[in-house]
């Protein structure tokens, strides 16, 4: 671990066992699909077999007449549709006039038996007028392409286009003078890059269980990254108040951005309302692939120029698939791609394009990995042309405190230079790489991180312990990291804080666990709750000791008088005196953080390419990242390792593979090849700790950045090994063989 500067913490930086751990290793933890309720019935969803079709009619009569079938619903039964206000969110939950991708939900059934519900789907008669699909961004942007929505016009800052189009928006980021800068450049490189749609790949399928009461209140149990986000989406789709909806967050089996939007919850709610019983839906794995997630594939044309070893100009045109409805992360990619560097002159055109594929969802640093795949390969080429070490070239061009990003934002204290230095000094980078068909690559990555809103309550118990009540989904150890920050603030032990994640009725608003925000923003809320308790204890001690509050300090878990050594109480002693000093003590903390602190990562990878099979083996992999302050280093390392391995999968094997009919041909874990334990080595981590000045403990988000560099780092390593530059993903055995032997 590289520590730049760090106070002497007692709890922060230790590696305690997570509070929810025992339940999870013994199988007792309850995830969304584990819920059972009195009178529970089961729902199933009928999905479109076509990737583009007009829905002429839906006849549910025969299905409804089957024994055991309790209700059938379509788009028309959603309260938002009944109100005549249907929108993209509603049309994604259940197709409206058109099925826009294979797997698009058409109707939902509730039945007393799961298998009966499934069998009844076949009795719903849907008359489709099948249309030609469009699957790739450049096809979708071309004249004569099938149009998904005849009413769509391209939105730009200058207004809207006139003709129907699949280009939902076109935005431009510009600065300086690229024409002059390229004219003055001593080196330029330009290439086109293509990436494929990939899925988050969480192991737990989506689920949703709802119980609608006769008084109009609704309870929902689901695995989600944001219970409050589910509540607000449901309120919109169901045309009711958020106050009537209670979302109970169950444990969540992975999300990576893909469990923020609702899919099954609104169907469960409407079906439950119809039949007066709780309804549970769980999604099949094929539907998870075909109808949820994924993240965009896309096309990027990029050009970089240098002058005297400095990157002076960048020109980029990029188009990302949004799936069936607008909303690709193309702008996030555009805003990230140059952020590791200082580039004065730039022009980036970004297109958000609809295609007949599932509507994309957030996926770990959404938009950034594909953008880095392009830029970090060009940076590699420039370093190579200039005969400069690729890390030193990045160091020479690195953004630092005060640098301006393409958004015009001036960056605060960041750690890209420190992270590059750590990578340069690493044992890995200095170890020789030898043997035929082997190579080493590096790449940098950037992610903004998010701050946003969090609320926590800390209840002080008479025995000197605390129940920490929070509303942030714990997707990878945040109960531990939040309990640790409260223990640090109050000078008590980690074991004396018991955290619990509660439902939307039981705590103030919390934004989603996403954007790498929870340990940062909920951590700051926890810190504030701790300060609140400190102040309450000081106030009560002043009353007990008949002195001014200003004469009392809170130090190391004790309330102490500044001059009278006899006047001191430990946290536990003060906690035990609650009844006689004014009653229960509760600390409260709420935040709207705008200072998440950006993350920079630098990855080093060694590969071996088998020229006979086209298979690429990862021989060694290291992740260096500026993590701010590592609250629980094991879980920070885990984020770096997990993100890197997702990136390895994206680089080497993962892709949505479509037939010409628009059917995804690999919608199973057998054919959609995510890395297994056998496919990767140990992932070495270097935690660089440059504290975030915008957080009391210096916390930066860490979780998303590690998926940004791998695509490019591996492509750079493969180039080092073979002399061939792969500009199209994935670098699967087939593609490697085709390109190395020019047999396409």
């Amino acid at each position, binding site marked *: 671990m590289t520590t730049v500067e760090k106070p002497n913490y007692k709890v922060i930086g230790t590696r305690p066992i997570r509070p929810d751990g025992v339940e999870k290793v013994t199988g007792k933890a309850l995830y969304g699909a584990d819920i059972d309720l009195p009178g529970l019935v089961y729902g199933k969803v009928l999905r479109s077999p076509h990737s583009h079709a007009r829905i002429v009619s839906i006849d549910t009569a025969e299905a409804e007449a089957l024994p055991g079938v309790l209700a059938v619903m379509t788009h028309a039964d959603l309260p938002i549709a009944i109100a005549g206000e249907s929108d993209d969110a509603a049309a994604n939950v259940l197709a409206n006039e058109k099925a826009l991708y294979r797997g698009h939900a058409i109707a939902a059934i509730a039945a007393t038996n799961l298998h009966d519900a499934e069998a009844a789907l076949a009795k719903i008669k849907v008359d489709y007028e099948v249309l030609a699909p469009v699957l790739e961004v450049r096809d979708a942007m071309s004249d004569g392409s099938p149009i998904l929505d005849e009413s769509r016009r391209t939105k730009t800052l200058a207004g809207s286009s006139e003709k129907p189009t699949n280009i939902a928006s076109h935005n431009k980021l510009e600065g300086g003078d690229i024409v002059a800068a390229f004219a003055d450049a001593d080196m330029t490189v330009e290439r086109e890059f293509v990436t494929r749609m990939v899925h988050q790949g969480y192991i737990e399928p989506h689920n949703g269980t709802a119980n609608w009461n006769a008084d109009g209140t609704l309870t929902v149990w689901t695995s989600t990254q944001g219970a409050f986000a589910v509540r607000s989406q449901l309120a919109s789709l169901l045309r009711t108040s958020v106050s009537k909806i209670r979302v109970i967050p169950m444990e969540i089996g992975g999300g990576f951005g893909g469990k923020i939007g609702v899919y099954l919850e609104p169907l469960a709610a409407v079906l439950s309302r119809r039949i007066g019983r709780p309804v549970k839906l769980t999604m099949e794995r094929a539907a998870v692939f075909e109808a949820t997630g994924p993240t965009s594939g896309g096309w990027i044309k990029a050009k970089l120029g240098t002058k005297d070893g400095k990157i002076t100009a960048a020109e980029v045109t990029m188009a990302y698939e949004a799936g069936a409805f607008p909303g690709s992360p193309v702008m996030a990619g555009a805003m990230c791609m140059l952020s590791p560097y200082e580039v004065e002159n730039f022009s980036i055109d970004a297109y958000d394009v609809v295609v007949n594929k599932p509507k994309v969802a957030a996926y770990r640093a959404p938009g950034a990995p594909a953008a880095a795949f392009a830029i970090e390969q060009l940076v590699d080429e420039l370093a190579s042309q200039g005969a400069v070490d690729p890390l030193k070239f990045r160091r020479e061009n690195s953004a630092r405190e005060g640098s301006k990003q393409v958004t015009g934002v001036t960056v605060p204290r960041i750690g890209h230079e420190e992270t590059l230095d750590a990578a340069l000094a690493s044992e890995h980078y200095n170890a020789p790489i030898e043997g035929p068909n082997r190579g080493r690559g590096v790449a940098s990555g950037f992610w903004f991180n998010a701050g946003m809103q969090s609320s926590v309550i800390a209840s002080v118990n008479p025995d000197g312990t605390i129940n920490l009540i929070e509303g942030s989904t714990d997707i*990878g150890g945040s109960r531990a990291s939040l309990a640790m920050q409260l223990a640090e603030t109050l000078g008590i032990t980690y074991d004396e804080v018991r955290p619990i994640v509660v439902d939307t009725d039981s705590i103030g608003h919390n934004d989603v666990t996403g954007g790498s925000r929870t340990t940062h923003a909920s951590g700051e809320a926890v810190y504030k709750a701790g300060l609140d308790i400190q102040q309450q204890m000081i106030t009560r001690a002043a009353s007990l000791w008949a002195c001014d509050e200003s004469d009392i300090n809170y130090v190391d878990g004790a309330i102490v008088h500044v001059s009278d050594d006899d006047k001191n109480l430990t946290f536990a002693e003060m906690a035990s005196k609650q009844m006689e000093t004014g009653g229960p003590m509760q600390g409260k903390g709420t935040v709207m953080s705008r200072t998440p602190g950006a993350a920079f990562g630098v990855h080093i990878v060694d590969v071996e390419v088998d020229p006979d099979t086209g298979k690429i083996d990862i021989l060694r992999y290291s992740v260096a990242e500026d993590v701010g302050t590592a609250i629980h280093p094991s879980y920070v390392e885990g984020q770096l390792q997990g993100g890197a391995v997702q990136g390895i999968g994206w680089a080497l094997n993962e892709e949505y593979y479509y037939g010409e009919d628009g059917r995804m041909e690999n919608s199973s874990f057998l054919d959609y090849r995510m890395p297994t334990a056998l496919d990767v080595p140990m992932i070495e981590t270097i935690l660089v700790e440059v504290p975030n000045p915008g957080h009391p403990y210096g916390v930066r988000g860490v979780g998303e950045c590690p998926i940004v560099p791998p695509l490019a780092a591996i492509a750079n390593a493969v180039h080092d090994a073979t002399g061939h530059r792969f500009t199209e993903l994935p670098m699967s055995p087939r593609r490697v063989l085709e390109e190395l032997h020019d047999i396409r």
Partner: protein
Amino acid sequence: MAGRRTQVQTKLNGEETDFLCEPRQSLLEVLRDELGLTGTKEGCNNGNCGACSVLVNGRVANACCVLGVEAEGADITTIEGIADGDKLHPLQQAFLEEAALQCGICTPGFIVSSKALLDSEPEPDEERVRFWLAGNLCRCTGYDKIVRAVLKVSNTSDNG
């Protein structure tokens, strides 16, 4: 429509257990929906992710690929049967200490599968652990800490 329910006799986590199930129900569905043992997870329902790993007569099986009626006479161990009362199995303790879980959905399958490995081969090396666990998918950890947790228990046995 619903088939006739068959009575099946098994030994489940050490206890003689009878259940009724339809011929179309998988062992996974029986465990979760009929017997309330929801520690065994469904990730894909077609044998590709290993989240539903259970031991059937000491061998690892994907419970989604076994029919409930096939369990007649079998000795089955699920994640709920790995600990000894409130005493965790060394693998469970190692997973906690090594932070070998993030979301935890794959964890029961990994622990059951790892137990089967260590029961038959007490001292596997890293390559063997990775090979054995290739049938269990984890999307959060990148496997590093899972492999370390299993090796930690392996080494413990090594030390006697």
